[in-house]
C-alpha cells in the first residue's frame, strides 16, 4: 500500500506540449506511471509520444478516466490550471511549476477548501510510490519499495535523504515533496495523517528547513496523534539569520523559524532528529529501533 498514488493511478499531464512537460511525462511513463492524457489549450486532437492531447481537463477526464494531474503549466497560467483540475473532479493534482505569484495562490488555496481534490506543491519535486508510479521530476532509481513514508519541503535534499534510506536498506512506501512556497496544498500534517492511516507505512522521515512554523506544528501533531516512529532532518542550522536563502520558505524572521528551535521542538515531541545531513539514514534506523516514543 501507499498514500495518494499507486500503480492504478491514471495520470494526465497539464502542459504536456512544453519542454519539461513532455520530458517528464516520458520519464514518468518509463518508470511505470500510467500517463493517459495530456492537456494543452489549443492543441487538442494531436498525439505526443502516443499520448492523446486535449484542450481541457474535463474532456481528458471524460475520455480517459484520469484521476491525477501533473502540472507543468508556466507561472502566469498555473493557478488557473490547478483550479481547472479541481473543477474537473480530479482526486489529486501535483503542481511542479516554480514561480507562481503569491497573489494567484491565495484564492486558489481558498477555493480548494470547497473541493475534494488534494493539491501537492506548487514548486515541488512531486511524489513517488516506488516501483509503482511516479508523478514528479525526482530520479526514480534512488527509490526502493518499502515501509518508510517520506515527506519533505525540499527538492534535491529529499533525493539525498531517500538515497541514504535506500543505502541503509530502508525502502519507502511513498515519498512526497510538498514544496517550498509560502502557499502550498498538502502540508506536513496532512501527509503525516495519511501515513499514520496507511497500514503499509511503518515509520516516517520528515525533511524540513528554516523559516515558517510548519515543522513545529507537525511536531505537536506527532506528539498528540502519531502512532508510528518519526525521524527528521532540518536544514539551515548554520544559515546566517535574517538572510534570504533562495527559497521563499527559507526566511528566518523575528526569532521564529530558526533551525535550532525547530529541532528542539521536534525532539521534545519524540522525534529523532539527525544532527547532520550525512546521518539521515542512521536517524531513521534509530527511530525504528526506539518505536513510537
Amino acid at each position: 500500500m501507499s498514500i495518494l498514488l499507486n500503480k492504478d493511478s491514471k495520470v494526465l499531464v497539464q502542459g504536456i506540449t512544453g519542454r519539461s512537460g513532455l520530458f517528464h511525462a516520458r520519464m514518468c511513463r518509463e518508470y511505470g506511471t500510467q500517463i493517459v492524457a495530456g492537456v494543452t489549450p489549443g492543441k487538442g486532437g494531436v498525439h505526443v509520444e502516443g499520448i492523446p492531447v486535449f484542450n481541457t481537463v474535463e474532456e481528458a477526464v471524460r475520455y480517459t478516466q484520469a484521476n491525477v494531474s501533473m502540472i507543468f503549466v508556466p507561472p502566469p497560467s498555473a493557478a488557473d490550471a490547478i483550479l481547472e483540475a479541481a473543477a474537473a473532479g480530479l482526486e489529486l493534482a501535483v503542481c511542479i511549476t516554480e514561480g507562481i505569484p503569491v497573489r494567484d495562490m491565495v484564492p486558489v488555496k481558498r477555493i480548494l477548501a470547497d473541493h475534494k481534490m488534494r493539491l501537492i506543491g506548487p514548486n515541488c519535486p512531486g511524489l513517488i510510490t516506488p516501483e509503482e508510479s511516479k508523478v514528479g521530476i525526482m530520479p526514480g532509481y534512488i527509490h526502493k519499495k518499502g515501509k518508510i513514508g517520506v515527506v519533505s519541503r525540499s527538492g534535491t535534499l529529499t533525493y539525498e535523504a531517500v538515497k541514504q534510506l535506500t543505502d541503509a536498506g530502508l525502502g519507502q512506501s511513498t515519498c512526497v515533496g510538498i514544496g517550498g512556497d509560502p502557499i502550498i496544498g498538502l502540508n506536513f500534517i496532512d501527509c503525516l495523517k495519511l501515513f499514520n492511516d496507511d497500514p503499509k507505512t511503518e515509520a516516517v522521515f520528515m525533511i524540513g528547513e528554516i523559516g515558517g512554523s510548519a515543522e513545529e506544528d507537525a511536531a505537536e501533531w506527532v506528539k498528540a496523534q502519531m502512532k508510528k516512529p518519526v525521524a527528521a532532518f532540518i536544514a539551515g542550522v548554520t544559515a546566517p539569520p535574517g538572510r534570504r536563502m533562495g527559497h521563499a520558505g527559507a526566511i528566518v524572521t523575528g526569532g521564529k523559524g530558526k533551525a535550532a528551535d525547530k529541532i528542539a521542538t521536534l525532539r521534545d515531541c519524540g522525534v529523532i532528529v539527525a544532527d547532520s545531513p550525512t546521518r539521515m539514514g542512521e536517524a531513521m534506523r534509530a527511530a525504528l529501533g526506539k518505536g513510537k516514543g
Partner: protein
Amino acid sequence: MNIHEYQAKEILSNYDIPVPRGRVCLTADQVERAAKMMGGHCVVKAQIYAGGRGKAGGVKVVHHPEQAQDLAKELFSRKLVTPQTGPEGLRVRRILVEEAVEIAREFYLSITLDRATSRYCLIASAEGGVEIEEVAQKSPEKIHVLNIDPLTGLRSYQARKIALALGLTGSLCEDCVALILSLYRACLDKDCSLVEINPLVVTRAGWLMAMDAKMSFDDNAIYRHREYPDMVDYSQLDALEITAGKYDLAYIKLDGTIGCLVNGAGLAMATLDVLNECGGKPANFLDVGGGATREKVAEAFKIILQDPDVKGIFVNIFGGIMRCDVIAQGIIEAANEVHCPLPIVVRMDGSQVDEGKKLLKASGLNVQCADNLGDGAQRIVKMLG
C-alpha cells in the same frame, strides 16, 4: 525585491494615501536646495534597503539648509550600520528630504502574507513608531490582526473595526477606513509581499499621514510589472549577488573560504551545515537550481572564483535526472576558462556518475571526487589544511 522608502511613498500617494512633501536627492547640494524649499526646517532620511535607520543616525531633523547639507555629506561618505543591515552596513546613495510634520499620535499598519492561513493579513497597532516586534511579544493584545478572505476582499466594516480599535473616531475614523482599503488595493495591484506604514500618524493639524513606508514585492510576480527592474538601487546589493541574479542563481556571500556550488536550496543549506560540522567555513551559499544545467554550473563557477576570499571549492550536485558527465563538462569548461588553480572537490550523484568522475580526473584540474556528502566535505576541509 525591496524598494526604497521614497518609492514606496510615491506608490502609496498614487493610492490617495497622504505622505509628507518630499524630494529625493543624489548629492549634498541637492539636499541643501531641497531643504531650502522646505523652509529649512525638515527631515533628512538616508535611503537604504534596511530598517532601524533612526537609531543608526540615518534619519535626522535639521533646522537650516546648511545643516542638511553637512549631514548629507556625512551620510554619503560612510556606510550605515543598523540592526537589519548586518555588520558590514549599507552605502547611502540617495537621501530623502521631507517637510517636518508635527505629530499628535502614531500607529503601526501593515499587510503581509500569513502562511498559517494562506491569506493576506492586516496588522495594526496603536503603539506605532516603537519596535513593533517588541510590542507583539510583550503585549500581544495591543496588536490587531485581520485575516482577509480573498473571495470577499477587505470590507469597509472590517477596516472600520480596526480603525476604531486604534482609537480613531468621527471623520478621522472614516479617513482611516479609506486608507486601509487603499492599502489593501495597493498590496494586491503591486504584488507586495509586505507593505508597512510605521508610523502612520495623526498630525497636529488633524490629518492621517504615512510618515515612513516599507514595501517589498513578490519576486515571482516581477514578470507582470515592467517598471520594477528599473526601480532597483544596485548600490544596495552585493556585486556578485547582482551577477548571480542575472543568471537566475541564488547567491549569498558569507565570510568563510570554501566556495560552495550546490543544486537546490535545501541541499545547499545542508551542505553549509556539513562543512561547518567538519570545521570548514563556507564562503557563500549558491543554489544553481534543482535541475542544474551545464550553463548554470559554468556561470556559478565563475561567480565563486571572483570572490578573493575563496581558497577552495566544493561542488555538491545531486543530479537526479541531469547527467553527471554533462555537469562535469560544465565544471571543466568553466575552470579552464578562468584558469582556476584552486583545489576542487566534486560530489555528484545521478546518472552517468562514473563517466563524470572519469572526465574530471582526466581534466588536469586540481580536483578530487567524493563518494558522498560527508566524504566531500571532509576532503575539501582537509585540502585547505
